[in-house]
């Protein structure tokens, strides 16, 4: 659905080449049909610039991309018809009503039955009662909902969401997140930028961690495994020093640490090794109370990636 090859954007700041700003450097990635893809990166990483290039708003300095099967730079009008975008700061015509705002965009997108589509999205996002009120009187959350409606009014196959929940209160964020989940079930492809890692973890099939360059790209679960391996914690009534060696000797176990009455075991394949470990412990007379996996949050992975990238650049 979205494919890029060496996509690069350099902003000319002054006359001299030294002052050029490389916002996106050689981005190559592929987003599948129906996938929710999270584009993670700190402020100024080049996320918005990437979205703007992929929606035909600004021209790449070099590189190519295909969006919804159309070639970027050659078939931009077709791309625009097939993608929706929720921009980072989604402005509305403040003096106009919610209904009028949507109607204008429905017409600009050449939607066949304008009234029907407008009504559909007004009610879907819970704005039906307020449709005749001017947007100037709307709360931030309501504006965001209206902006989401606007980005969907032409039923795009691909939706770009640029920091869809930044600056929203928890309730409005939840509404937007729930809506993304619903869109996912409709089979639309979603490309969302965010620095809310929790959100990315919950919604995205795959995430790319990006800072000028693509640092890594995988599903949140795989990233976790790749970065930190897997760890399982065994809560025992008490830990006897001999058991540490016992568990360490079991196939597939990389490392064992005793912390108080817990044993923290690093291992490659918990599904395979956990039963053996429990068996061994029980045979040795241990009382196993709980077993659980220690999950590294995406946040830890992200911080690790971004910080080592910054160390690398310094």
């Amino acid at each position: 659905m979205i494919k890029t090859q060496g996509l690069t954007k350099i902003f000319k700041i002054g006359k001299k080449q030294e002052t050029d700003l490389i916002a996106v450097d050689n981005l190559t990635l592929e987003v599948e049909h129906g996938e929710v893809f999270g584009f993670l990166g700190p402020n100024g990483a080049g996320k918005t610039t990437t979205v703007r290039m992929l929606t035909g708003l600004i021209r790449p300095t070099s590189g190519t991309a295909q969006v919804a099967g159309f070639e970027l730079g050659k078939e931009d009008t077709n791309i625009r018809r097939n993608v929706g975008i929720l921009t980072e700061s989604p402005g509305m015509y403040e003096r106009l009503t919610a209904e009028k705002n949507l109607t204008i965009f429905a017409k600009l997108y050449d939607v066949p039955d304008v009234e029907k589509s407008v009504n559909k999205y007004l009610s879907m996002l819970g704005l039906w009662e307020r449709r005749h009120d001017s947007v100037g009187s709307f709360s931030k959350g309501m504006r965001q909902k209206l902006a989401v409606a606007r980005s969907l009014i032409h039923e795009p196959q691909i939706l770009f969401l640029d920091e869809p929940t930044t600056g929203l209160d928890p309730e409005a964020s939840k509404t937007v997140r729930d809506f993304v989940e619903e869109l996912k079930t409709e089979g639309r492809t979603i490309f969302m930028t965010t620095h809310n890692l929790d959100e990315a973890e919950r919604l995205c099939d795959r995430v790319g961690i990006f800072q000028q360059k693509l640092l890594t790209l995988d599903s949140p679960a795989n990233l976790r495994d790749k970065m930190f391996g897997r760890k399982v914690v065994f809560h025992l009534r008490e830990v006897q020093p001999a058991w540490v060696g016992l568990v360490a000797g079991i196939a597939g176990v990389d490392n064992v640490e005793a912390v108080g009455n817990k044993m923290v075991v690093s291992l490659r394949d918990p599904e395979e090794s956990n039963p053996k470990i429990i068996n061994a412990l029980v045979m040795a007379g241990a009382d196993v109370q709980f077993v659980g996996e220690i999950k590294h949050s995406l946040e830890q992975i992200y911080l690790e990636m971004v910080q080592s990238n910054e160390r690398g650049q310094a």
Partner: protein
Amino acid sequence: MKHVRTIIDKEWSEVFKNRWVITTMTMLPMLFVAMPLVMLYMTKSSLGVDLPAESAGLPGGFGAACAGMTASECTQIYLLNQFMIMFMMMPLMIPTTIAAYSIVGEKTTRTLEPLLATPITTIELLAGKGLAAVIPGVLISYGAFGIFLVGSLLLGLAPGVISYIFSPIWLLGILVLGPILSIIATIFAIYVSSRVSDPRVAEQLSGSVILPLLLVMFAVLAGKLVIDVKFMLIAIVVCALVAFGMLHLGTLIFDRENILTKWK
């Protein structure tokens, strides 16, 4: 064309909710119609005795226009010149105000990006914004001119003055040159507004397009210039060329990326 209509409709529903724009659009024509009518009424027979035109002490250039007229009639024609030129400022000032608010408004509401993400072409967008400013400017000045013409007929003026008012000079000036000036003013206003962030400043800066018109007015006042049909025709051709040049330049300058990143 459908997109252009959508933009015009959007501009009008937005910009006509702005009090300052409405004030400009109503006060200006009222003032420009009332002033010359009051002037004509006051000077109808202010000189009492009808002296020959030469004794009115007007700049020499008016000799031809005043041939066979009395001094008071000739004074009216002299003054009418100023008011007619002022009249031609209307199709300049109204679109300037509308365009300034429409472009700066788009920037302050941050609606340019979603707008540019739609399949609209930049030409359609600029045409929509431009026409949304030009059309009211032209319609209002036509309307005001019509009211002025009717009013002047009701005042019972001398036949020479009436025929001067209805002469091709001013019909060409207001009906043909007016719209062309509107287009120039609008393109200029769009350009200026794209560079500033305060609609008032945009309006004042783009208002500078009336300067050439003021120059013409002063030249006429000083008797250095007499506006005749030939002058009007030349002005029409020159202004039309300028308008075309500006349109062409506009389509070269304003592409999507430029509008999105430079209109700040």
